[in-house]
């Protein structure tokens, strides 16, 4: 228990939760439920990976939900009104998102402003821009969309591992490699530990900040594309509040909100726990969906309190250890 990392606790919560659901509903433990869990939360998983990087670096990105909404509208209009091939539209929106994220990162670094308020402005801007493009839901009927939604790996037991679930798993895997095995990832942890120290070590803090927010916005754009696959439409009000869901997923996944500690795998588990609560409510049928919010809030509090307790223990243990080493 002494050295149990937060991720292990998250995994335990997920396993225990899944077991409890299975006890109550014997049909729960099927590949169908598991595959749906991945499909329904694919966009949240992708955007939460980006949020993990931002939060570990000590920042926060409130604009992701709006960027998803913007992306779905942009893609729908580009394909349906302008007649662009879907892949060209995807490339265009990802470039646009990269520029948007880079701009936010640059403002945060150059003007030394709190990320919270800069990305808040970004949130207004992206949502407002998508409203200006269209306030109606635009259905997408490109052939690529039906191909993608028809594609699925059949699992034993009748589950369908859909294309968007596979995209999400690929993003999680790539994110984990980028965070845990590259210099970029190490720098992200360093930034979250201490900005000043990182700068003194010679790491370019400015370009790191720009690249981290760029990554978050690009992943939000990708999540928007996945969301448009999921709903086959573009709507300016889609994904309202997703920034909160993804922050909650990251925190429940054991990432320290003060930065410097966390993992991508934990975030995936955090997303799945939220999906599990939603699935349980669907299975139950009598509970209303607002219980998802309450249970998520309770879990959020439990994990934050846990982090706080662990930090407190670490602080108290710190000087004592130094005392032991010194003589």
């Amino acid at each position, binding site marked *: 228990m002494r050295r149990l990392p937060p991720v292990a606790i998250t995994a335990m919560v997920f396993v225990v939760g899944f077991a409890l659901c299975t006890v109550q509903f014997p049909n729960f433990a099927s590949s169908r439920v598991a595959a749906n869990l991945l499909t329904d939360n694919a966009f949240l998983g992708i955007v939460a990976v980006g949020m993990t990087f931002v939060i570990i670096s000590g920042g926060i990105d409130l604009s992701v939900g709006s960027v998803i909404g913007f992306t779905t509208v942009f893609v729908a209009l580009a394909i349906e009104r302008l007649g662009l091939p879907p892949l060209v539209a995807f490339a265009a929106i990802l470039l646009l998102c990269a520029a948007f994220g880079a701009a936010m990162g640059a403002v945060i670094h150059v003007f030394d402003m709190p990320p919270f308020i800069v990305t808040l*402005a970004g949130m*207004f801007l992206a949502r*407002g821009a998508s*409203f200006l493009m269209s306030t109606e839901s635009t259905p997408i009927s490109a052939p690529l969309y039906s191909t993608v939604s028809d594609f699925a790996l059949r699992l034993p037991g009748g589950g369908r591992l859909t294309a968007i679930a596979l995209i999400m798993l690929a993003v999680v895997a790539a994110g984990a490699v980028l965070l845990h095995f590259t210099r970029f990832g190490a720098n992200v942890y360093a930034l979250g530990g201490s900005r000043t120290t990182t700068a003194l070590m010679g790491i370019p803090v400015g370009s790191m900040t720009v690249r981290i927010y760029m990554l978050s916005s690009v992943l939000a754009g990708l999540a928007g594309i996945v969301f448009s696959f999921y709903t086959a439409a573009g709507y300016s009000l889609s994904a309202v509040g997703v920034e*909160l869901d993804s*922050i909650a997923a990251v925190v429940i996944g054991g990432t320290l909100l003060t930065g410097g500690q966390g993992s991508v795998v934990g975030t995936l588990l955090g997303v799945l726990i939220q999906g599990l609560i939603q699935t349980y409510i669907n299975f139950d049928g009598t509970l209303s969906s607002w219980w998802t919010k309450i249970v998520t809030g309770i879990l959020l509090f439990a994990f*934050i309190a846990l982090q706080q307790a662990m930090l407190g223990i670490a602080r108290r243990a710190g000087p004592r250890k130094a005392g032991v080493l010194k003589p």
Partner: protein
Amino acid sequence: MMSRLLQSRGLAQIIALLVILAVDRAVSPQFFDLRMQDGRLFGSLIDVLNRGAPVALLALGMVLVIATRGIDLSVGAVMAISGAIAASLADTHGLPLALAAALGAGLLCGLWNGFLVAVLGIQPIVATLILMVAGRGVAQLITEGRIVTFTAPDLVWLGNGAVLGVPAPVVVVLGMLIVTGAVVRGSALGLLIEATGGNARASELAGIGTRGMILAVYVWCGLCAALAGVIAAADIMGADANNAGLWLELDAILAVVIGGTSLFGGRFSLVLAMVGALIIQAMNTGILLSGYPPEFNLVVKAAVVLVVLLLQSPRFANVGVVLGRARQ
């Protein structure tokens, strides 16, 4: 000369408000027209005050929280909770009990936030995020997912009535402003709050009970949010747990920031936060009157946030100083 003028506190905000009102007047020629009907004043100007009341109330609590270097993201959710409580109790239990229960709930929410920040030492953004996520669920639980409507005339009066022609919400805001101002500026309390935000550790060492101070501002913020929720519910004669106070936390923060209170804590101005709330509402009303789609609002707000923040940024000030020196 110009820069010295702009540096005097509050002038920039008041000029901004006047400019926006002038633009509104240009857009809609009858903007400043007032008329009396059924013992209540009507007109676009009154409308700005009336519609701006909930955000003004939120800003009144938020400004103290931000002065301690905190932030309260949960005010929108608290509005939904208190509105739901007031609407469900008003018809059956009478106004005093409904009001007491709604405000009591706000007090409890504030106490919870304050406990997390002051006692457990959690960063304010995170601590209040919990209630922001869960609070709307709690409000849904109270209304059982429906939009609760009521007809109790005394509660409806709080949203639609008038005192000497002035709409009741505006009177409530004025009352709260006077009470808050008298408490924090009439005593050393405001100074102690500013000290806490400036440097919590130094303040603690200087003998200020920073924990109590932080707890108190979050409780006050919760109370103001609850009052805003009651007024918003009274205005539409119903409580909608999904949409009551949605995104208003952002407007409240924006109002405080426009009012020149730094997000880094350490100083605040109640009156300028009110001016900030009026600027936001005057902008909203202006966009509505001009016939632009209301969606335009968000883009304009984003631009305003960025400009105000750039002006507040220490780096930006440095750039100004360098430019000034170069000119000399």
